[in-house]
């Protein structure tokens, strides 16, 4: 049945006179100077209700512990094999009353009950960010799966400030996205929100209620080491 439907639909579309293909008009997405770029990213994502903290490459786990302590976070999900996951585990192991770490190291079928209800926050890295719209760019991977940035009530995302691009168009072109799209690519611009009840904004309707961005400073030596 499906095959016939396919050929009939395509036949009808082909029977219609093909339209002229309009020329591609010039359009340039906005560009920013280096110092504007970072400021724009911060201003935009803060306007979307995210919290931004500037951190150092070596000390961010300590900083994160105090940020999360203020929010009463006790159980934090991490990706145990990523650089960030390992750094966090190493530093927190030596800290008194650091939250418990839960590794996303098994398929969702095994971890579902924990993921759905039992973690307070998750920490992920990002592939980059976008200044124009204040957006995080994530390509979830086997090491850092999709649901980490979605199910826990708090999402902590590490953004390396030298990876902030001007616009999505520039990022897609520079990194040749079209040549090899991942299973899932996701752009995140703030915590989950809704305005379905009388246009009143409410956060955390399905995804994270809070988005914490740790903006990693560009230290020359550090940048090379990552």
């Amino acid at each position, binding site marked *: 049945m499906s095959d016939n439907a396919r050929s009939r639909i395509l036949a*009808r579309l082909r029977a*219609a006179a093909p339209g002229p293909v*309009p020329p591609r008009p010039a359009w340039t997405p906005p560009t920013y100077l280096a110092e504007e770029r970072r400021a724009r990213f911060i201003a935009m994502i803060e306007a979307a209700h995210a919290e931004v903290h500037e951190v150092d490459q070596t000390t961010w786990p300590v900083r994160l512990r105090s940020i999360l302590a203020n929010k009463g976070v006790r159980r934090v999900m991490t990706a145990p094999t990523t650089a960030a996951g390992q750094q966090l585990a190493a530093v927190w192991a030596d800290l008194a009353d650091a939250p418990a770490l839960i590794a996303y190291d098994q398929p969702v079928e095994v971890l579902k009950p924990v993921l759905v209800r039992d973690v307070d926050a998750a920490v992920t890295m990002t592939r980059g960010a976008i200044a124009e719209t204040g957006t995080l760019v994530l390509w979830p991977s086997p090491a850092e*799966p999709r649901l980490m940035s979605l199910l826990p009530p708090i999402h902590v995302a590490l953004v390396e400030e030298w990876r902030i691009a001007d616009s999505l168009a520039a990022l897609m072109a520079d990194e040749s996205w079209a040549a090899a799209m991942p299973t899932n690519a996701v752009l995140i611009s703030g915590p989950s929100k809704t305005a*379905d009840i009388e246009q009143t904004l409410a956060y955390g*309707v399905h995804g994270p209620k809070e988005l914490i961005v740790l903006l990693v400073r560009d230290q020359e030596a550090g940048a090379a080491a990552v």
Partner: protein
Amino acid sequence: MALETMPDGPVVENPAMDKGPDFTQRAHAALIDPGLRRNFRRAMDGLMEKRAAQFADPVAWAALRERGAQARAAALARLPDLLEELEARCAANGIQVHWAETIEDGNAIVLGILNHHRARQVVKGKSMVSEEMHLNDHLAAHGITAIESDLGEYIIQLAGELPSHIVMPCIHKNKDQIATLLAANIPGLGYTEDVAALTAAARRILRDRFAAADAGISGVNFAVAETGTLVLIENEGNGRLSTTLPPLHIAITGIEKVVERLDDIPPLLALLPRSATGQPITTYVNMITSPRKPGEKDGPAAVHLILLDNGRSRVFADAQLRDTLRCIRCGACINHCPVYARVGGHSYGSVYPGPIGKILTPQIAGLDVAGDLPHASTLCNACVEVCPVKIPIADILVRLRQEAAQPAGAATPAVKGAGSRRHIAEALVWTVWRWVYAWPWLHHRATRLLARIGNWIPARAPLLRAWTRNRTRPHFAGQTLHERARRAGIDHE
């Protein structure tokens, strides 16, 4: 493929319409409901203001809009080729593609896939196409529970209503109404008007539904032929959950949603949320290119894409009407429509209300069913000015009015139900009108006659009644303009 299909699904005669009173009657009821008018007015004013702030620079807006319109027009220009390319790319990526000519086919395909996977609990992300298909009713008739997870859709599903806006489905309801509804439906939730508390309660209930779901169903905002990628945008995260947590994902889209290249996406994304709600971007842009790959720890093992025609190929056949299919469903035309702001979304009796509904619904359901909708407009052009992909909505409205009044009987009318609103009396009036204006001596006599006896015609006379029902009866001057001019000594003839 051997999917089970149900031969005995419910027959929906007027797919995009519900039955009952026509637009005029529904609009009348809506107009005398001050609460409803207040809800819409407030919402529309806010949305218009926010959109205007996003496009404050007219030069940038014009260039971006040109690029967006081009992306959609170019996609339509090569639609059959692009659909084949999309299908091939999706297949190569592991996404199974299905084609549905009608909503009955579409519903049967969804049901077949769900049965194949023995799925009984379904969560849905927001999808206007599934509304168009009345998919939830179809699934319910076959023992499958489909829960809407977008907060607005969830609210109207609880209320048993249709969406009143394509972007904000429960915009017609105010806080007290929603508080009452949720208190009655969510165990343990008392009446509260605290929006954060209401939202948290919905999160709790729906989180359990997500965890228990056997399948997720979603719409699609753009399908990229070049890469076989499905792009979905949303603010809540329910769309990401529906397409990530359950083991099976079924995406449903109209055949027109395809775009040629991945680099068409940034300009369209720069237009859609800003036009819709005045946000620079939605919270989430979710790009799905394949099911879960070996080694990945989450994501659905199977992803299906259903391409629904339901009359779109017929719309496509006409060079002028084809522009209807450029629509990216931003709802800006709705937010700026003076008619919509006053009569609300339900008056249209259509899944798609407002200007886009007025041009789309009659073409899909037929002018015989929805022929009154193209008349629900003053042709003020507000929708045309804001449409991010430059759809000539007003021209299409006029064209549809003409099609509806066409003499019936053309072998293959451009629009289903063409000629269905042709009234012999009306046709006669216009024929006489044409003669009168073609012959000066006849015009002269006719106007003189009307000047003399016009005021004697009762306001409730058959043809006049349609006008005087809502308006003051026109008053005829005692003399025609020509007579007065002549008397004043002006005579150019």
